[in-house]
């Protein structure tokens, strides 16, 4: 096999999720907005913070809210020397399991500290509230150290105990939904076969691979034949003429794609290939696109070529006779004579 370049691309995948909290978590978040912290009493009497919707032992639905204190003790921690951009604090800090006064189960949050040495099991901490609580867990900006330490088993009593005047679901004020956008950033490294394909398409050449067993030609190549399960390494340079195997006319816009609907997305098979890929069709009447139609690539100017299939802007119809359906995907590299 010809040596491929090592191709890697930074990539972002993200969605703007909106989460329904349900009544229990909604009440917890509603209370945070008022700078109060509520747990829930489990079937065995323990107070769980943040509140669980269902009992971890008996599966019973839980609904007895209990207000807990705004101070607590560290049960365990780990020190973060180099905070990342997504971390809640941008100086070195600790993630900690914190048992709030009046709670029986620790919760995870961050602790601001000048140095790792200040942290200890039993170290006392206090909530630092965000300036404008909004009903998110980040309303607790962090915990700060009080400079005292208690015995590991001590769990001082909590705040007011029973949960008094909490906003409840249905109240205008209650939190019922929260925004939870998630964006993943990663580097995608193309494998050997795609990297070779991309390297060649940067030069305006379409390169597929032939399966040594079934002799079918795949483009873009994946380095193996999905039907036979064997590695493919014989390269086949293909022309930029293709046949429409099928197509759809799409009436809705694609996010972050400037193309305006309606547009034609076609399943195209290059001459000499045995598998279709999808690409745009243009310079045609949408109503005249049909199965068996002959098309050819319209390339971007050479100066804009990069490691991408969209070096081909789209495919346009050409003046060649239609390919009979039974021959689609079976044409030789030399194309279709009609």
């Amino acid at each position, binding site marked *: 096999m010809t040596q491929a370049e090592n191709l890697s691309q930074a990539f972002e995948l993200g969605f703007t999720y*909106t989460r*329904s909290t*349900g009544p229990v978590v909604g009440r917890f978040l509603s209370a945070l907005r008022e700078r109060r912290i509520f747990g829930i009493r489990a079937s065995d009497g323990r107070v769980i913070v943040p509140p669980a919707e*269902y009992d971890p032992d008996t599966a019973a639905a839980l609904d007895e809210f209990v207000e807990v204190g705004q101070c607590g003790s560290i049960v365990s921690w780990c020190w973060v020397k180099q905070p990342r951009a997504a971390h809640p604090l941008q100086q070195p800090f600790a993630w900690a399991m914190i048992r709030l006064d009046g709670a029986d189960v620790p919760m995870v949050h961050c602790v601001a500290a000048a140095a790792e040495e200040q942290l200890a099991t039993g170290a006392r901490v206090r909530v630092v509230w965000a300036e404008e609580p909004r009903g998110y867990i980040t309303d607790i900006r962090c915990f700060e150290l009080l400079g005292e330490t208690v015995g590991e088993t001590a769990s001082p009593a909590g705040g007011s105990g029973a949960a008094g005047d909490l906003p409840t679901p249905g109240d205008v004020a209650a939190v*019922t*939904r929260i925004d939870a956008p998630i964006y993943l950033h990663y580097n995608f490294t193309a494998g050997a076969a795609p990297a070779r394909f*991309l390297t060649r398409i940067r030069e305006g050449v379409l390169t597929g691979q032939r399966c040594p067993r079934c002799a079918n030609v795949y483009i873009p190549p994946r380095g193996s034949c999905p039907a036979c399960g064997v590695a493919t390494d014989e390269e086949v340079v293909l022309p930029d003429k293709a046949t429409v195997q099928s197509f759809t*006319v799409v009436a*809705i816009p694609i996010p972050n794609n400037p193309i305006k609907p309606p547009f034609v997305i076609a399943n195209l098979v290059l001459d000499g290939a045995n*598998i279709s890929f999808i690409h745009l069709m243009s310079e045609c009447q949408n109503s005249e696109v049909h199965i068996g139609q002959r098309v050819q690539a319209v390339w971007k100017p050479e100066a804009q070529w990069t490691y991408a299939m969209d070096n081909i802007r789209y495919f346009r119809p050409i003046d060649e006779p239609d390919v009979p359906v039974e021959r689609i995907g079976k044409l030789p590299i030399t194309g279709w004579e009609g």
Partner: protein
Amino acid sequence: MAKLAAVVGIGQTHYKTRRVDVSIAGLVREAAVNALEDAGLGWDDIEAVIIGKAPDMFEGVVMPESYLTDALGCNGKPMLRVHTAGSVGGSTALVAASHVQSGMFKRVLTVTFEKQSESNAMWALSTPQPFSVHLNAGAGGYFAPIIREYMRRSGAPYDVGIRVAVKDRLNGARNPLAHLQLPNITAQEVEDSMMLWDPIRFLEACPSSDGACAMVIAAEELVSQSPRPPAWIRGVAMRSEPTMYAGREEVNPQAGRDCAADVYRQAGITDPRKQLDCAEVYVPFSWYEPMWLENLGFAAEGEGWRMTMSGATSLDEGGDIPWNCSGGVLSSNPIGASGMIRFAEAARQVRGDAGAHQVEGAKLALGHAYGGGAQFFAMWVVGAEKP
């Protein structure tokens, strides 16, 4: 040899665009509690829990099964999450069934869900890919060219899909749990609805729903402990194939034909149209009814559309083999649960428990799910009679 097992409890939520009143845990809990109540059982009667849902990207909760153990009473029990794309509701039911049929467990709870309102499922199915042109336009964009090829080779008239879209919505109007309630829908309305992915119109496509579906499956010796009639599991089968390979038959996938042949053989079915009383089949785009009629052996190749147009699959028209009496995926689509709803609705029919969408005297029914690029298939046949 597999041991006998039966569905003894079924629970569903009311399918809706948004269930903002509950968390994901609250949603699955509702279906599970309904199934336990239907089975006359409590959490302690369940030995294992099998959970299914479609890709985690739909809600953005990675490995939701680990967060749902409290809500589903999994403490101290084996719990397993299944994923096979859109067919997951069916394959989850089959994994649960095999836990009992193997003799390893006596009673298993199985739950599937999707809370599509938490994100945008269409674009979660069509994410941009590195080094690629972003031209994937959702499931409709993927399946539209396959439907077009079916229309070409069968010579079916343009309005077969419209007919199915109307039929399944009229069925949905009989089912109080169905998301879409369109009792007055007309063919004209479907035809006039926006062409989204030609040839798929808006009203020929499934909705996006929030919802969950659950079942309790019990071993033979415990079936009588539940108060309501059981649905005996008479055959179970799954098949899969790669999404794309040279020469792949995309319109009438081999995996679907093989899966159907397997499940029919187990249930002693040689003529599905004649021997089955009804079927709940995964039809997310209306044209998939005639396509699956052929794939599942109810009609000869190229003839599925004639069967649809004859009214044979219509409950309202008294067809001999009603399909999707519950309204189907075209009426309710919480993706991860959609396959299990087909399995559960097939069971409801043979239990005589399908209310206003009951097929009179139904004794034997097919539940079907497919997923991915029509590459994962899951099916079961359930019957009123113990085999």
